[in-house]
C-alpha cells in the first residue's frame, strides 16, 4: 500500500512537471497586459486580438493544411512501402531500404533541414529560378520526415498479421482486392491511424525543418512565433495555444469515451454506420482542404506578398485600454480592391499575404537561398545597400519619375520648423538616404530610430549613466543584457571605443572583440525580444535597445512600480554617439512587372494618411512607436497628442542633427573583408566560454564511467555464469543462449528452475 502511494505521488509529480509551463501559458493568455512574465489582471483581450489577427489565422490555416497534406501523403506512400518492404525477399535490399528510411529519424532535425535546403538551392540554381523555396519545398520536407514514423507504425502490423488469413480469404472466393480490403486492411488500420496521427503531430509542431525549407510568403505558426523576436512574443500566441490545447483535450477525451462503448456493443448496423462516419469524416477533411485551395479562385484575386519584421505593422490589435487599432493590411485590401475593380470594370479581390522575419540576416538568407515570391520587403539601411549591390532588389522608379509612381512620395520631404532654414540635402534626407542616393530609387523609408540604453533607475545610480561604458560596468555584473546579433553587439563596443563602425582597421577589430570578450562574464544574456520581459520585471537592469521599444518597456514597468530610464549614450565630448537605423520598403528583383504595380500600390498606401482608410501611416507610427519620416505623421496633432511628450525621445535625432548622425553613425554595408571579420569575430565571441564550469563535464564523466563500469560488470558476470553452467549442464545453456529476448532473463529462469529442482531433491 505504501508502495502504491509512493508511486502515485511520483506520477503526480511528473505530471506537474509536464504541465507546469502549460498552466503558466494558459494563465498568461488571460493576462490584461502584454507581459508574458507577470500577471496583471484577468482579461479576454488576447483572445479577441487573436481572432482579429488575420496573419496569425492565416499561419494557423497554413500549418493545418501542411500537416494534413503531408501526413496524408506520407501515410499513403508509407503504408505502400511497408507492404512492399514486408513482402521483399532480398534481405540486403530490405535492410538497405529500412536503413535509409530511418535516416530522417536518426538525423538531427537541423541536419535534415539544411541538407534539404542545400538540395533545393542547388535545384533552384539549375533551373535558374529564384523562387524555388516555397510551399512545395516545405511540403516535401515534411513528408520526408513523416515517412519513417508511418512506416514504423504500419510495419509491425504487417509482420504480426497471419499470412494464412489472406490465403484463406482467397480460397473462400475473395478477389485479391476484396481480400486486401476486407482482411488485410482492417488488421493494419490501427497502425495506419497511429502513423497518421504521429505524422500529423510532428508536422504540426515542426519548427526547425520548416525554418530552413520554407519561403515564398508561406508562413507556419512556429515560424511566425519565432519571427516575433524583434518585438515580443505576444500573449495572443498563448491564447492560441490554450485553444489548441482545449480542443485536443476534448477530442481525445471524446475518442476515449466513445471508443470504449463501441467495442462492447458493435452490431453489423453500427459497423456500417461507423464506416460511413469514417468515410464522411475523411471526405469532409479532404473537401475542406481542397476548398481552402480552390475556394478563393472563383473571383479574381490579386495577392500582394509582404515580408516584414515581426510586429511591425498596425494589425488591429487592442491597446492597453481595449481600443482596437487599425488593421492596415485589411484597409489596404479594401482600398485596393475598390481601386482595381473600378479601373478594370470587374470585381477583383485583393489579399495581402503578410509574413514576418526576425532579422535582416534572416531576410537576406531567405532571399539568397532562393525564397522568392515576396513583393514587398522591409530591410534596414545597410542591408538595402547590400541588396542593391548584389542586384537582389529592383529600382522602384527613377528619381525624376518617382513622384509620379509613388503619389505620396513627397510626404518624405522634411519641413523646416519655424524660422529654420534647411539646405536641399537636409530636406531630402529621407528621400535620398546614404544607402539609396543614386539615379534610381530602390527604397521608400518606412521608419527610422535610434539605439539607446535603457536602465533600471531603482538600481543603477545616476552617476554611472551617460555613456556606453554602463554596459561594461562591473558593479552591475549579471544584470546587463547585450544584443544577440553581430552587427548591433559589435556596434555597442565600437561606439564605446570611438571606432568607425563601418571600416575599422584590423587592430580596431581586435580591440572591439577584446572589449566584448571582457564584457561577456558580466553579461546576463544575449537577447533580442526577451529584453521586454527581462527589463519590465526587473530581471535585468541595463540593456541597449531601440528607442520606441524602450518607451513601451517604461510604460509596462511603471504599472509594477519599477522605474526604467532611457538615454542616448554620449562620448566624453558630450556628443551623442549611437546607431541610427532606417527600415525601408523595397521590391525584390524577381518581382514581375504586373506584381510590381501591386507592390507599388502597397508602398504608396503605407505613406498615405487617408482618413477613409484609417490613416495607415499614422496608425503604423502609433503602433510601432518608432520615428516616422512622413511629415504628414509627425506634424499631425492627434498623433502628437497620442505620443504625449514621447516625441522628445523618439524624434530626438531630428534636433540632434540627423544628417550627421546618419552619415557618421549609421551602419553601412560592410566590405566583404569586414563582413567576414565581423562574422568570424562574432563566432569567436559566441564560442568563447566565459563561464567555464567544469561541474557539468565532471558529472558527465562520472556518470559515463559508472555506466561503462556497470556494463562491463554485467558482461563479466554473464560470461562467468555461462562458464559455470556450461560445466554443469550444457543443454540448459544452449537453450538459454538461443535467441531468447534476453540472455539474462533465461539465465534467471534457468537458475530458478534449477534451484527449485534441487530443493525438491
Amino acid at each position, binding site marked *: 500500500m505504501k508502495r502504491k502511494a509512493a508511486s502515485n505521488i511520483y506520477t503526480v509529480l511528473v505530471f506537474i512537471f*509536464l504541465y*507546469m509551463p502549460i498552466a503558466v501559458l494558459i494563465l498568461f493568455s488571460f493576462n490584461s497586459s502584454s507581459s508574458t512574465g507577470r500577471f496583471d489582471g484577468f482579461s479576454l483581450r488576447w483572445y479577441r486580438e487573436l481572432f482579429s489577427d488575420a496573419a496569425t489565422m492565416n499561419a494557423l490555416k497554413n500549418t493545418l493544411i501542411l500537416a494534413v497534406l503531408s501526413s496524408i501523403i506520407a501515410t499513403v506512400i508509407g503504408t505502400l512501402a511497408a507492404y*512492399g518492404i514486408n513482402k521483399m525477399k532480398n534481405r540486403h535490399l530490405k535492410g538497405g531500404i529500412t536503413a*535509409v528510411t530511418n535516416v530522417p529519424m536518426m538525423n538531427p532535425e537541423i541536419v535534415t533541414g*539544411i541538407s534539404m535546403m542545400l538540395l533545393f538551392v542547388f535545384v533552384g540554381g539549375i533551373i535558374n529560378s529564384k523562387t524555388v523555396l516555397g510551399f512545395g519545398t516545405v511540403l516535401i520536407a515534411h513528408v520526408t520526415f513523416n515517412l519513417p514514423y508511418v512506416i514504423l507504425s504500419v510495419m509491425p502490423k504487417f509482420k504480426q498479421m497471419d499470412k494464412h488469413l489472406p490465403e484463406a480469404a482467397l480460397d473462400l472466393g475473395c478477389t485479391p482486392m476484396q481480400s486486401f480490403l476486407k482482411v488485410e486492411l482492417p488488421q493494419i488500420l490501427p497502425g495506419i491511424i497511429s502513423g497518421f496521427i504521429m505524422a500529423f503531430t510532428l508536422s504540426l509542431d515542426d519548427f526547425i525543418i520548416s525554418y530552413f525549407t520554407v519561403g515564398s510568403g508561406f508562413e507556419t505558426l512556429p515560424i511566425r512565433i519565432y519571427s516575433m523576436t524583434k518585438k515580443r512574443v505576444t500573449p495572443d500566441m498563448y491564447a492560441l495555444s490554450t485553444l489548441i*490545447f482545449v480542443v485536443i483535450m476534448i477530442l481525445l477525451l471524446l475518442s476515449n469515451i466513445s471508443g470504449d462503448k463501441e467495442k462492447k456493443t458493435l452490431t453489423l448496423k453500427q459497423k456500417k454506420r461507423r464506416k460511413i462516419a469514417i468515410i464522411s469524416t475523411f471526405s469532409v477533411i479532404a473537401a475542406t482542404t481542397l476548398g481552402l485551395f480552390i475556394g478563393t479562385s472563383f473571383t479574381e484575386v490579386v495577392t500582394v506578398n509582404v515580408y516584414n519584421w515581426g510586429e511591425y505593422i498596425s494589425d488591429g490589435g487592442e491597446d492597453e485600454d481595449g481600443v482596437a487599432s487599425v488593421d492596415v493590411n485589411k484597409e489596404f485590401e479594401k482600398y485596393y480592391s475598390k481601386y482595381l475593380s473600378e479601373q478594370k470594370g470587374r470585381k477583383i479581390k485583393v489579399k495581402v499575404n503578410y509574413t514576418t522575419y526576425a532579422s535582416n540576416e534572416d531576410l537576406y538568407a531567405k532571399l539568397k537561398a532562393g525564397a522568392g515570391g515576396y513583393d514587398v520587403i522591409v530591410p534596414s539601411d545597410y542591408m538595402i545597400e547590400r541588396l542593391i549591390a548584389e542586384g537582389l532588389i529592383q529600382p522602384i522608379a527613377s528619381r525624376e519619375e518617382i513622384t509620379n509612381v509613388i503619389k505620396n512620395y513627397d510626404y518624405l520631404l522634411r519641413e523646416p520648423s519655424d524660422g529654420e532654414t534647411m539646405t536641399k540635402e537636409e530636406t531630402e534626407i529621407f528621400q535620398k538616404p546614404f544607402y539609396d542616393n543614386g539615379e534610381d530609387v530602390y527604397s521608400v523609408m518606412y521608419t527610422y530610430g535610434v539605439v539607446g540604453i535603457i536602465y533600471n533607475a531603482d538600481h543603477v545610480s545616476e552617476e554611472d549613466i551617460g555613456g556606453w561604458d554602463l554596459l561594461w560596468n562591473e558593479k552591475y555584473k549579471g544584470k546587463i543584457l547585450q544584443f544577440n546579433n553581430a552587427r548591433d553587439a559589435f556596434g555597442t563596443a565600437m561606439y564605446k571605443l570611438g571606432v568607425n563602425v563601418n571600416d575599422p582597421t584590423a587592430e580596431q577589430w581586435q580591440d572591439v572583440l577584446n572589449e566584448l570578450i571582457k564584457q561577456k562574464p558580466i553579461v546576463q544574456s544575449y537577447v533580442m525580444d526577451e529584453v521586454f520581459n527581462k527589463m519590465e520585471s526587473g530581471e535585468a537592469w541595463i540593456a541597449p535597445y531601440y528607442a520606441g521599444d524602450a518607451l513601451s518597456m517604461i510604460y509596462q514597468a511603471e504599472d509594477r512600480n519599477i522605474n526604467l530610464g532611457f538615454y542616448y549614450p554620449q562620448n566624453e565630448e558630450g556628443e551623442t554617439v549611437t546607431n541610427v537605423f532606417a527600415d525601408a520598403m523595397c521590391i525584390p528583383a524577381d518581382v514581375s512587372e504586373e506584381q510590381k504595380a501591386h507592390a507599388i500600390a502597397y508602398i504608396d498606401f503605407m505613406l498615405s494618411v487617408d482618413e477613409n482608410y484609417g490613416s495607415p501611416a499614422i496608425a503604423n507610427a502609433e503602433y510601432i512607436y518608432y520615428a516616422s519620416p512622413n511629415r504628414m505623421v509627425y506634424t499631425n496633432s492627434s498623433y502628437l497628442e497620442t505620443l504625449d511628450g514621447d516625441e522628445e525621445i523618439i524624434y530626438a535625432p531630428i534636433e540632434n542633427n540627423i544628417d550627421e548622425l546618419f552619415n557618421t553613425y549609421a551602419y553601412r554595408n560592410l566590405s566583404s573583408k569586414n563582413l567576414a571579420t565581423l562574422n568570424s569575430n562574432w563566432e569567436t565571441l559566441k564560442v568563447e566560454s566565459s563561464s567555464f564550469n567544469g561541474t557539468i563535464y565532471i558529472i558527465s564523466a562520472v556518470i*559515463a564511467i559508472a555506466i561503462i563500469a556497470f556494463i562491463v560488470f554485467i558482461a563479466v558476470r554473464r560470461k562467468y555464469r555461462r562458464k559455470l553452467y556450461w560445466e554443469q549442464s550444457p543443454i540448459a545453456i544452449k537453450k538459454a543462449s538461443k535467441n531468447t529476448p534476453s540472455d539474462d532473463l533465461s539465465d534467471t529462469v534457468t537458475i530458478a528452475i534449477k534451484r527449485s529442482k534441487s530443493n525438491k531433491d
Partner: protein
Amino acid sequence: MNNKKSLLQRAAAAPHIVWSVLFIIAPLIFVIYYAFTDSEGSFTMENIKNLAQPSYLEIFLRSLCFAFLATIICLIIAYPIAYFITKASPKTQKILIMLVMLPMWMNFLIRTYSWMALLEDSGIINTVLKLLGLGPIHMINTEGAVILGMVYNFLPYMILPIHSVLSKIDTRLMEAASDLGCNHFQVITKVVFPLSIPGIISGITMVFVPSISTFYISQKLGGGNFDLIGDTIERQFQTAYNYNLGAAMSFILMILIIISMTIMNKYADDDGGVII
C-alpha cells in the same frame, strides 16, 4: 498469378524508394559535398580543420555532455513513470498516456518561452520560494536551465517507447519469477528491465538526437551563453552564410551521432531497431 503479384508488391515500395533517393540520400550528398569544398567549389579539408580549434571542440564536448545528461535524467524520470503507468487499469493507462502526449501538441517554442517565465530570478518559481522563505535561487541562463529545457521537451519521447515495451511484457513472466523466489526488486532487475531494453534504446535515441542538435532551447534558457552545435550550425546558415562550415559541422554531428548510436547498440545487445 504469383509473378504478377510479386511485381505489384515490388511496385508498392517504389514511390518510397524514389522519394528516399531524391529527398534523403541526395540532400545528404550535398551536405558532404559542401563540407569538403570551399565557396568556389573546389575540394578542401579547411572546413574540417577549422573545426579542430579548441573553441569548437568545446562546443562539441558541451553539446555532447548536455545531451548525455539530459538523456540520463530523462531515463531516470521516465522509467518509473512508464512502469507505474503499466500498472494502472487499461482505461487509466489510456488516459495517462494521452496526458503524456498532450504537451507535444503545444508549440515547443511557446512551451520553452513559458519556462523562461518560470525560471527567472523574479519568475514564478522564485516568487513562490521567496514566500516560503527559501530565498531566490538563480536558475535561468545556467547550464541547468538548458538541460532542464531539454529534459522537459523530450521526456515524452522517453516515456512512450518504454511504456510501449513494458506494457507488452507477459505478466506471467513476472509472476513466474516471483513464484520461483525472486523478490520484488529482483523481478524488476532480472525480468522487467532486461526485457525493456529495446524500449530504452529507442527512448535514448529519441531524446539524445534532438537534444544534441537543438538551438532554440539553449538560446532562450541559456541566455545565449552556452552555444551548442545547433546554435553554431544555425548561425552559419542564417547569419554568416558560411554554408561550407555549416555543412562540415552537420557532417561531424552526423558522424558523432552514428558513433554514439553504434556504441550504444553494441553494448545493449540489441538488434538496433527503434520501437515506437
